């Protein structure tokens, strides 16, 4: 069964919202649920690729998403091993998406989750995200393409699922990986619940083609509202949950949300993500799903996000979130770093270069 009607997609999105809700209730950080950027970053940290002590933990959600998509694709005959569509450009787009996301502090999924909890910064960022998607659509209309992928050996598409399965097994059977003792990395739902939630969302996302960039892109490009209906389902469920449980706080500098109120950089951070996601053919979540169903090109994009997260923390590009100083009780505003600003502008310039130097008509 393909979730191919708006109603079915709405339900799929709503179920993903329920999964996010359960994860939040069982210990995941506030309004993070299963933020792809944050959780790839945490996993990279757990494996020692960066040393930001507060954000190191192997996130079973990410592993579950990839494995869920892999298993359902195998079961339904949708598994196709392919690759070869400008892999290094896709790697760069993965790095770029991660840098933009960690300047805003979240992937498009977390933006929607933050919106559902009343974080006004996320609404500001949505303007940037939509503008980024629009710019990507403009490039597509001018014939942007990263070229064709080709069928690959069947085993090629299995590599990433096998690697993440290995990470999962090692994380529960050994003490090889680092686990944060404080900060967002120390907050997590039980491993089994997180893994099951990841698997379920992976399956739903694969069947519903859930994509945050694709949702807006299809509206701008073709006045098609199919993909946005998944996001709408997720948003509504979380909005109701947040209001019902008193978690909805409309405001800018809300401590505990892990967000900052530098409007320009919230806009530019998500502009970068939206633009790069359209060029890469999908948002960070969609890349995980496509990688799970056999696309080596998306797997390379995922590796780009992984490396990008280490770059963000090793070179001080990631922003900080507004928090209350535990000793003084003072509100410390979250901030974007100078390095982060420069990196964001470089990423936007790189997106423009990629967008207007890769044309279908130039493909041989």
């Amino acid at each position, binding site marked *: 069964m393909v979730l191919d009607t708006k109603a079915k997609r709405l339900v799929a999105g709503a179920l993903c919202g329920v999964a996010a809700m359960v994860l939040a209730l069982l210990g995941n950080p506030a309004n993070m649920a299963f933020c792809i950027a944050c959780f790839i970053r945490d996993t990279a940290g757990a494996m020692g690729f960066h040393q930001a002590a507060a954000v190191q933990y192997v996130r079973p959600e990410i592993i579950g998403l990839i494995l869920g998509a892999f298993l359902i694709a195998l079961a339904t005959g949708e598994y196709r091993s392919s690759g*070869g569509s400008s892999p290094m450009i896709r790697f760069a787009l993965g790095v770029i998406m991660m840098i933009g996301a960690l300047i805003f502090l979240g992937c498009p999924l977390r933006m929607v989750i933050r919106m559902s909890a009343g974080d006004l910064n996320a609404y500001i960022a949505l303007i940037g995200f939509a503008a980024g998607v629009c710019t990507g659509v403009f490039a*597509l209309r001018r014939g942007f393409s990263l070229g*064709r992928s080709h*069928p690959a050996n069947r085993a090629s598409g299995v590599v990433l699922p096998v690697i993440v399965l290995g990470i999962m097994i090692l994380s529960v059977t050994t003490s090889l990986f680092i686990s944060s003792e404080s900060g967002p990395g120390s907050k997590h739902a039980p491993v089994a619940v997180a893994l099951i939630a990841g698997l379920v969302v992976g399956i739903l996302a694969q069947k519903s083609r859930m994509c945050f960039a694709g949702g807006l892109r299809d509206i701008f490009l*073709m006045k098609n509202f199919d993909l946005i209906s998944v996001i709408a389902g997720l948003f509504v469920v979380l909005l109701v949950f947040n209001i019902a449980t008193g978690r909805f706080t409309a405001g800018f500098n809300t401590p505990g949300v892990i967000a900052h109120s530098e409007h320009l950089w919230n806009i530019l951070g998500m502009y970068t993500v939206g633009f790069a996601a359209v060029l890469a053919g999908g948002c960070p979540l969609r890349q995980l799903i496509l990688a799970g169903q056999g696309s080596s090109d998306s797997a390379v994009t995922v590796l780009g996000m992984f490396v990008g997260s280490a770059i963000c923390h090793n070179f001080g590009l990631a922003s900080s979130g507004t928090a209350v100083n535990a000793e003084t009780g003072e509100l410390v505003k979250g901030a974007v770093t100078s390095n982060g600003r420069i990196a964001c502008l470089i990423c936007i310039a790189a997106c423009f270069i990629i967008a207007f130097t890769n044309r279908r008509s130039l493909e041989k």
Partner: protein
Amino acid sequence: MKEVDARGLSCPEPLMLTLDALKNNQEVKVLVSEPHQKTNVEKLAKDKGKKCTSRDMGDYFEITLG
């Protein structure tokens, strides 16, 4: 019949190329690699009031709109 070879292209290129081809042609044959792209093209055909038939060609799908 106009043929659109969208095999291996990323979304939304197959749909954009199909829409382009439908502007000047009554019948269009579209080749795509991924099952979800096949579904998308079939849905587009339905939206445009076109009849369509799909065939699984092994490595790719062939969808005829007309």
